[in-house]
């Protein structure tokens, strides 16, 4: 069952890799690129939020740092936006150390409350930070000055770049899953006190997880800014940026390798098409649905679809179970 499931997922992954090339429609190609981008940040959230069980509602801070680093590198230094990505990652490490060390003494609910407050604080500070464009935000290059600006008319090159980053992150997560770190994180996630009593160095490994998680979320933010060419306090630091990561990881299955990707494949097209159909009001509708989805997951299937689907399958064919 597990082996065949994995084979199915690999088949889906290959299909996903070639799918946008099959269509000529830029609308669908763009959605495909956004799916992979969302999967990157949701998979990054999953490392700390899923495996280690530290439910962060503040990952937008990392995303915003990455996005702002890219467009600050362009507007202030005249560099190609992507050159800001390493700076964003560096900043994410610093933030993880500052925020992670003290807040990891907080367990469960306390940690989630702290992350909401930190995100709200960061959003307010950036909105009032005139140097970084204040409430208006920052723009990327309007026309490509060199290939390094990564400005493409077609969504396909973005799709390819995002896919490479996602692949790196998933391989890293896969490797982590079966290494000592993966076992430690899952032990922490299922009960911190018990893990500590077994000698798991909790704070150190939570910090490692936050470093990985934050760095890839910051990278996702930089890639977003490179593709969209615009970032403002809402699209970088807004609570909905965090919500997207949480709902996608939770829907597919928090703490599973492919869960966040599955969540992104389901939810991003849904959100983009409702936006296209309903216009500005569509965002509200999508988040009403996200709220319902999150409540349903919490109530019926905290493991997301990764827990729910095998249960359905087992009920349908008792022999397979």
């Amino acid at each position, binding site marked *: 069952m597990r082996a065949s499931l994995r084979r199915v997922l690999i088949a889906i992954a290959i299909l996903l890799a070639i799918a946008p090339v099959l269509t000529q429609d830029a609308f669908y190609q763009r959605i495909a690129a956004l799916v992979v981008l969302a999967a990157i940040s949701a998979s990054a959230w999953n490392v700390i939020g899923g495996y280690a069980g530290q439910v962060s509602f503040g990952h937008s801070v990392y995303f915003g740092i990455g996005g702002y680093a890219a467009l600050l590198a362009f507007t202030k230094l005249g560099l190609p936006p992507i050159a800001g990505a390493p700076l964003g990652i560096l900043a994410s490490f610093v933030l993880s150390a500052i925020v992670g060390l003290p807040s990891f003494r907080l367990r469960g609910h306390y940690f989630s409350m702290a992350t909401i407050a930190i995100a709200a*604080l960061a959003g307010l500070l950036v909105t009032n930070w005139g140097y970084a464009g204040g409430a208006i935000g920052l723009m990327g290059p309007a026309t490509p000055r060199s290939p390094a600006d990564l400005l493409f008319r077609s969504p396909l090159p973005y799709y390819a770049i995002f896919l490479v980053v996602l692949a790196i992150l998933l391989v890293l997560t896969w490797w982590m899953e079966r290494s000592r770190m993966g076992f430690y994180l899952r032990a922490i996630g299922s009960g911190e006190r018990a893990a500590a009593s077994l000698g798991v160095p909790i704070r150190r490994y939570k910090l490692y997880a936050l470093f990985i998680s934050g760095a890839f979320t910051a990278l996702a933010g930089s890639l977003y800014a490179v593709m969209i060419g615009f970032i403002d306090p809402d699209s970088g630091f807004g609570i909905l940026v965090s919500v997207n990561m949480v709902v996608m990881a939770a829907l597919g299955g928090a703490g599973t390798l492919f869960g966040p990707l599955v969540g992104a494949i389901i939810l991003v097209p849904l959100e983009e098409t409702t936006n296209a159909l309903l216009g500005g009001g569509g965002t509200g509708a999508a988040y009403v649905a996200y709220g*319902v989805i999150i409540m*349903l997951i*919490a*109530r019926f299937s*905290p493991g997301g679809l990764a827990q729910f689907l095998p249960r359905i399958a087992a009920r349908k064919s008792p022999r397979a179970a």
Partner: protein
Amino acid sequence: MILLQLAADGLLLGAVYALFSSGLTLIWGMMNVINFAHGDFVMLAMYVAFFAFTLLKIGPIFFVPLAAMALFGLGVLVYVALVRHVMRGPMLAQILSTFGLALFLRYAALWAFSANFVSLPDNLVGGVYQLGGIRLSASHLLAGGTALVLTLGMHLVLTRTDLGSRMLAVSEDRVAASLVGIRAERMQALAWGLGAAATGVAGGLIVLFFYVSPEVGNAFTLLAFVTVCLGGFGSVPGALIAGLLIGVIESFSAYWLGPATKDVVVFALFVVLLWVRPQGLLGRA
């Protein structure tokens, strides 16, 4: 004089913060669950009051109790349909459940009422009182006074009545309480009802002098967090003192740093507090 004026304004607003925060602290104290939708309950109550006034043409004497009753019902419903089932589940489910609820309420409100700011007419509770050079508006006085009385009332109910003792017993030890014949489920549902009713009254009072939009809930949620954290999780008197203090801090920082940054001070205080003293100023370790 200006300092006294700021302090008075802050105390009156802080009393309202204390009222809805005591609802959050009651729920936490009973079952160690944080209601991430707490501020959105306040938002909902503000809309109930607003529409009760505009559609039914009823004044605060009727719409505040109406909002309280509506939110009491919502609180019980949320407990029975959602929280009761996730309480013994994994931490992820506990945290996600009310966060999803917050998202749902906020964006359903956005959908139903649009993002526009609306407010009640200024003169609904009109008049300004002079008290030794301090100007106190009647709406603030009414809101602050009512909130103060009700928060103290909630404390008295919890500490001085049979019902309060039963609730306390459930929060101390659910199983032992059940063994002596206390219906733990009913007490917890009641805690959610009362906790939400506190947001109902607070929302009905705040709307007298504050605009409503679907997004206001987020700030109230964080204000409730910082108040509960400062006062100690589970402590109603702690929430009262902390709420008054937060109101004054907010009032002073709005004056010195400008209204845009008043939340920065409060949120930063919360983050620092969570790090250095997560049990709160008055709370037990």
